[in-house]
């Protein structure tokens, strides 16, 4: 076989391309380009292909490109994939340069109210995702990717982590269920990821395996920056082991729950009332808090029902969850608003923090408002409330 293809071929495709390559004995590199942006970027696309042929030492090749306005990082990933599908032995990676604007880190306990899922093989959603201000963006290698395109998604996600400006959102990748997920890590760890989501996590060992492999890759690639983990619990066994999972790594930052799989696992249906998952969700919150990390709720899947979403967030907040999954950018604002402290909460927090400062200034060991004693956790919670308000207003 001397032919391979990669990418998407459909009249409805936007911001993506289809590439077909065929090895030749002679004739050099021949590029047949059909592009919606031929006049504006035709030359640039051809230049990229020639450059990549040189990088891979390819001398003779017929290339067919059907382009619907794919960004450079997408064309590069598609062409690299075509080459690697033809020659699976090739390991060399053609990497886009790091986007300087993405040079921000993260903190273990930063706000994680909203995390927006983006399918790993759909680059058209990437450049604007951060504009909707989610706390985190999840590039999904797992359920959002067709089994036949797992290899494609790895390259797209790797290039996106390097090239796309996510405007301050935390960069998360959901790897595949282990063991495949372990192989995903080399496309993620060296490329500026903040958080790795471990799906269908059932034991502490799942986390430890990811931690080991991430550690190895960090060392190999001389990565200094901390990478955090967010195990997602999606089964009865996972719920039973929740505390061990939550405390399996010091780099765990949060524990999340995935209810579609969980309800299937316990043999029931997901309902709006959520009676079937109430205990599991509470248990997950308790396990996360016991391990000193955040508890993150599942996604709300009806993108048209904003009132339902708002109610579900308020309910999640009351259970102790600090974040919610989003599958559409318009959900983000609603999630943030619903997680926001109420006026009464803010007022109370302001009073507590002011009293604490006052007491500190006077050198008093004990803080009180009126006849009520205020202890350290209360002050901490009040500070957190004000921090959330600040984040909301920025």
């Amino acid at each position, binding site marked *: 076989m001397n032919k391979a293809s990669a990418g998407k071929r459909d009249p409805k495709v936007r*911001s993506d391309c289809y590439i077909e390559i065929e090895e030749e004995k002679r004739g050099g590199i021949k590029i047949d380009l059909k592009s919606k942006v031929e*006049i504006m*970027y035709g030359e*640039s696309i051809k230049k990229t292909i020639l450059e990549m042929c040189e990088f891979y030492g390819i001398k003779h090749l017929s290339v067919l490109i059907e382009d619907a306005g*794919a960004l450079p990082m997408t064309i590069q990933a598609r062409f690299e994939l075509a080459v690697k599908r033809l020659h699976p032995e090739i390991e060399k990676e053609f990497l886009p340069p790091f986007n300087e604007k993405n040079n921000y880190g993260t903190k273990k306990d930063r706000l994680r109210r909203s995390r927006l899922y983006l399918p790993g093989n759909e680059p058209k959603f990437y*450049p604007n995702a951060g*504009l*909707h201000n989610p706390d985190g963006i999840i590039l999904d290698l797992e359920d959002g990717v067709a089994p036949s395109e797992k290899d494609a998604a790895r390259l797209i996600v790797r290039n996106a982590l390097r090239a796309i400006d996510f405007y301050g959102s935390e960069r998360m990748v959901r790897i595949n269920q282990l063991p495949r997920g372990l192989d995903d890590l080399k496309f993620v760890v060296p490329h500026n990821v903040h958080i790795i989501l471990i799906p269908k996590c059932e034991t502490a060992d799942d986390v430890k395996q990811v931690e080991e492999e991430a550690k190895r890759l960090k060392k190999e690639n001389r990565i200094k920056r901390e990478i955090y983990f967010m195990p997602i619990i999606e089964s009865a066994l996972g719920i039973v082991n929740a505390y061990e999972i939550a405390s399996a790594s010091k780099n765990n930052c949060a524990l999340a729950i995935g209810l579609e799989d969980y309800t299937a696992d316990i043999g029931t249906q997901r309902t709006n009332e959520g009676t079937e998952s109430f205990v599991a969700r509470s248990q997950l919150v308790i396990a996360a808090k016991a391990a000193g990390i955040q508890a993150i709720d599942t996604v709300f899947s009806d993108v048209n029902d904003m009132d339902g979403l708002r109610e579900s967030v308020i309910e999640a907040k009351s259970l102790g969850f600090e974040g919610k999954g989003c599958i559409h950018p318009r959900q983000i604002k609603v999630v943030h608003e619903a997680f926001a402290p109420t006026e009464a909460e803010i007022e109370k927090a302001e009073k507590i923090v002011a009293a604490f400062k006052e007491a500190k200034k006077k050198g008093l060991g004990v803080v009180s408002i009126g006849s009520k004693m205020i202890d350290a956790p209360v002050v901490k919670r009040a500070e957190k409330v004000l921090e959330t308000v600040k984040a909301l207003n920025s």
Partner: protein
Amino acid sequence: MKLVKNAAGRLVPTVVNGVKQVPYKGVAKYKPKGNKYGSPIRSCADYPDDGNKVVKNIREALIKAGLKDGMTISTHHHLRNGDVVTNLLFDTIKSMGIKNIRWFPSASFPVHSHLIKYLEDGTIHHIEGSMNGPLGRFTSLGKMKGTGVLRSHGGRYQAVQDGEVHIDIAVIAAPTADPFGNATGDRGPAACGLLGFALADSQYADRVIVATDNLVPFPCTPWQIQGNNVDYVVEVPTLGDPSKIVSGTTQVTKSPDRLLIAEYIARFLDESGIMKDGFSFQAGAGGTNLAFAVYLKELMKKKGIKARFIRGGSTKYLVEMLEEGLTDYILDGQTFDLEGVRSMRENPNHINTSPFTSYNYHGKGNFASMLDAVVLGATEVDINFNANVVSHSDGYLLHGIGGWQNCLFGKTTILAIPSFRDRIPVIVDEVTTLVGPGELIDVIVTERGIAINPKRKDLLKAVRNSSLPIRPIEEIYEEINQICGGKPAKPKVNKKKVVAIIKWVDGTVIDSVYQVEE
């Protein structure tokens, strides 16, 4: 073809289709003297006393109207993409062996690509109006015999009124008419709301033919076109496909990025202080524009603010605002959905307007300039705020001007645009075709931020403490070039072959469109 540099620095021809042209002089600089054009005096002696002007068919009407080679035939576009009358008209003209017609529509739609064969065989010499979709492509490839002339809705009225364009025969498709020629668009199987775009044609054409598929006994009342201006009335089986004339329902965009743009605009109007009791705005029927109206409505309700009038393109969203008391009036230029048509028919505060009242620049004022805020689209905007609506960065003509140029005279002009489409930057270093000068464009709202024209110091000041993402236009420009992989290359065009000219609202030529080299 001799080209000269106009006041905007663009090269434009001095003679087009044998007619001498005035190069653009700048905003509000060109004020022609003299009198308006007058249509010929007619006598009742030549018209039936019983008021019955019905003739057998379009062919007979055209013969009676004296159709000859080289004449100018006008049509209106209220039937939009459902129009079958214009195609039928030219089928008839072709069958009569007539050549070299100047077609003068108020706009064209993809349905009119039927006419390409008549442009090819010489039945139609050239188009003065808009060249949309396939017609734009045909024109851009240099295949049209004459040179296209693009005018705004107001510019079209001005050109007819000033005598720049003499209409020999106007064919006015009317959803309801009586035998005398009184006609309306607000009822009938092909109801389209109003007929304002045909007003100038009915007033100034030598001969006026009304074509209807709903002939009612005299009087058709209230009339929008006066029968006293009409020569002949023709019954046709149908004016067109109602579902393509007005939408059953117009839909707000689902694109999260466009919704974000719409939300930014509504917030901008609020935070800049433009949204206040008694204010006015214009919103069109594009998905982003509809969403903007929805967001603005929420803000108005929240703050208890009421508008004095809204200019449409009316849709159910504007109708809801009227019916919920959020505005006193809708001043409507065209209706986009069935709710708009119903409201215009039933609600005395839903007013039908015309390019004369709203847009004509050679009059004693017009409505567009009174608007507090106008939200428009664009295909390209450059870093000097100049904008393009007729062509894309690949050089091909694709859209008409519509009322766009006329609306630029509103107090605050806002362009709602995505910063790039697929991989094509919308903010560029220089527009492919100049349609609106930057000095009239105040705010660019993209999903990547809001750029305010530095000339509008008052607006910059008004929103200086806002949490909205106000950014210099150059910064957004740099950012999208980086995303798209560098500055886009310019199309290869033949700078010696002008395929169309763009008129400014005063009849001067603001830019040229060149033949694209395939």
